[in-house]
C-alpha cells in the first residue's frame, strides 16, 4: 500500500535538493563558523550565503535575519525579548485567541513578571477584527503579536494592516509566519512588521532550524545569551548544515511559489468541494478563500476526530486532528472552539495539509477514504 502524506503542516520531508545542499557540511566542511582557520571561514561563507537567500526571498536585508533552532524558539525570543526589553515602558501584550502555543505560552508565562495579556476574539472563519485591535491598544501596550496564517485552519490574517495599527500607536508588531513562509508571498521591504518567525521544517528544510526576522534598528533582549554568534544576538555554534538547507529551501520556495501555490489551490478546492458535496454533515473550518493554499480542515458531525484519524492511517493516509483526546481529555482544540462551533462539530475535525508531492489522484483517494470512514463510524455512533 503506497502511503499518502497529508500532514505537511505538522512537518515536511526534506527535499532532495535541500539534503544535497546540506551533505557537504556534515563531515567535510564542518568548521565552526566563528573560527578563523580556513575550515571556519568556509563554514562562515556558507552561513552568510544562506542568510542572503532567505533575506532575498523575504524582501529583507541579510542583517535582519537571525538563525534559531525553529519556530518555537523564534516565537519565544520575539515575545519574551520584546517584553523584557520594554518592561519599564509597560506590561501589556495583545495577541489573537488562536495563536500557536509557541506564542500563547510565553505570553502566559510573562504574567509571572506582571504582564497582562489581551486575547483578541476571531470570527467564525478565524479572522481577527482590526477595530478590536485598535480598541485593545493601551498606553502600556508594548507588543502586538498576530500570526500570519493559522496552523490548524489555514486562515490568513490581515497582518500588514494590524502592524500599521500597532505602529501608529508606537507598539512593536510580531507575526508568527511559520505556516505562511514558503506558501504565500511575504514582502518585508516596505512592511510595518518588526519581528517575524520562521521554521525550517514547514518548507522542506530540516527540523531544528528556523529564523527570526528583526527589523534593523529594533532592539529586543536576547533569549539565548553567550557566544558572539549572529552578531551577538543568538549564542550557540551555528548549525551550518541545517542553515544551508534552510537557505536552499527558501530559494526553491521563491522560485516556484507562484506555480506551486496555484497547483495546490486547485487541489485544495477540489478536496473541499468533493467532501462537502459527497459527505453529509460535513463543514469546512477556516476562511473559504483567505486560507493557505495547502490547508484543508473539515469537521464531521457526530464522529470523533481520533477515530477518523486511525481509520485513515490504516488506509495509508497520514493527517491530523484538532480534537485533543490524544494526550488527555481536555476537549477539542482551542482554535476550533474559538470559531464558536458546538462540541459535536469541533470534536470531529480532520486537518489535511497538502505538499509538493500531492497529486490529484491522492485527492480522489482521500475523498473516497473519508466517505468510507464516515460511513463506518456513523454506523457505530450514538448521534446527538
Amino acid at each position, binding site marked *: 500500500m503506497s502511503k499518502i502524506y497529508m500532514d505537511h503542516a505538522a512537518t515536511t520531508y526534506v527535499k532532495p535538493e535541500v539534503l544535497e545542499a546540506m551533505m557537504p557540511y556534515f563531515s567535510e566542511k564542518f568548521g565552526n563558523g566563528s573560527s578563523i582557520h580556513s575550515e571556519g571561514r568556509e563554514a562562515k561563507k556558507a552561513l552568510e550565503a544562506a542568510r542572503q537567500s532567505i533575506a532575498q526571498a523575504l524582501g529583507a536585508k541579510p542583517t535582519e535575519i537571525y538563525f534559531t533552532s525553529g519556530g518555537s524558539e523564534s516565537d519565544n525570543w520575539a515575545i519574551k525579548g520584546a517584553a523584557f526589553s520594554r518592561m519599564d515602558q509597560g506590561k501589556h501584550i495583545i495577541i489573537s485567541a488562536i495563536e500557536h502555543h509557541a506564542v500563547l505560552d510565553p505570553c502566559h508565562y510573562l504574567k509571572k513578571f506582571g504582564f497582562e495579556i489581551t486575547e483578541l476574539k476571531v470570527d467564525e472563519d478565524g479572522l481577527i477584527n482590526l477595530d478590536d485591535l485598535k480598541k485593545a491598544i493601551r498606553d502600556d501596550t508594548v507588543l502586538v503579536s498576530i500570526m500570519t496564517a493559522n496552523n490548524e485552519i489555514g486562515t490568513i490574517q490581515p497582518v500588514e494592516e494590524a502592524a500599521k495599527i500597532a505602529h501608529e500607536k508606537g507598539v512593536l508588531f510580531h507575526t508568527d509566519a511559520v505556516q505562511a513562509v514558503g506558501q504565500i508571498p511575504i514582502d518585508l521591504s516596505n512592511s510595518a512588521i518588526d519581528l517575524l518567525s520562521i521554521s525550517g521544517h514547514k518548507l522542506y528544510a530540516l527540523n531544528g532550524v528556523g529564523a527570526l526576522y528583526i527589523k534593523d534598528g529594533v532592539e529586543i533582549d536576547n533569549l539565548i545569551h553567550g557566544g558572539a554568534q549572529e552578531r551577538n544576538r543568538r549564542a550557540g555554534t551555528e548549525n551550518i548544515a541545517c542553515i544551508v538547507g534552510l537557505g536552499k529551501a527558501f530559494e526553491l520556495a521563491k522560485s516556484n511559489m507562484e506555480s506551486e501555490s496555484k497547483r495546490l489551490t486547485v487541489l485544495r478546492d477540489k478536496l473541499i468541494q468533493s467532501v462537502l458535496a459527497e459527505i453529509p454533515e460535513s463543514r469546512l473550518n477556516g476562511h473559504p478563500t483567505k486560507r493557505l493554499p495547502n490547508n484543508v480542515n473539515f469537521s464531521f458531525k457526530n464522529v470523533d476526530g481520533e477515530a477518523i484519524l486511525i481509520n485513515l492511517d490504516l488506509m495509508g493516509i497520514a493527517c491530523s486532528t484538532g480534537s485533543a483526546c490524544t494526550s488527555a481529555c481536555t476537549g477539542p482544540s482551542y482554535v476550533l472552539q474559538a470559531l464558536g462551533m458546538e462540541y459535536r462539530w469541533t470534536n470531529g475535525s480532520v486537518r489535511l495539509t497538502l505538499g509538493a508531492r500531492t497529486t490529484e489522484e491522492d485527492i480522489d483517494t482521500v475523498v473516497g477514504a473519508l466517505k468510507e470512514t464516515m460511513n463506518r463510524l456513523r454506523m457505530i455512533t*450514538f448521534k446527538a
Partner: protein
Amino acid sequence: MYNDVVMDHFQHPRNVGDMADATSVAEVGSQECGDTMKVFIKIKDDVIDDIKFQTYGCAAAIASSSIATEMVKGKTVTEAKKLTKNDVVTELGGLPDQKIHCSLLAVDGILGAIEAYEKNK
C-alpha cells in the same frame, strides 16, 4: 498506540446497533470527554440475553464498548453488575495511560441499563 485487540474491536465492533424490543435502555456520557453511549439490553430469566450499543467517542471508547458488551452477554445480572473498568482494560490487553478513563463509559453504560431494568422490575 493501540494493541491488536483494541484495534480489532475498534475496527470490527461487536454488538453495535439498536434494539426495538429492549428490556431497558441507558444513555450515559462522560462530562470529561464528551464521549456518549447508548446501551440496549434484553433480559430473560435474569440473564443478559442480548445487548446492543451505540458509542460516540474515540477508538478506546468504541473498543471498550464492544468488548464490555461481549463480556456481559450471557451473564446473569448479578454477575454482570460486577463489571469494572479494570476488567475491561485487562480484557483489552491494556490501553495507553491517558486512555484508561475512556473505558469507564462502557461500564457506566452497561451498569446504567441494568440499573434501569432493576428499577422497573
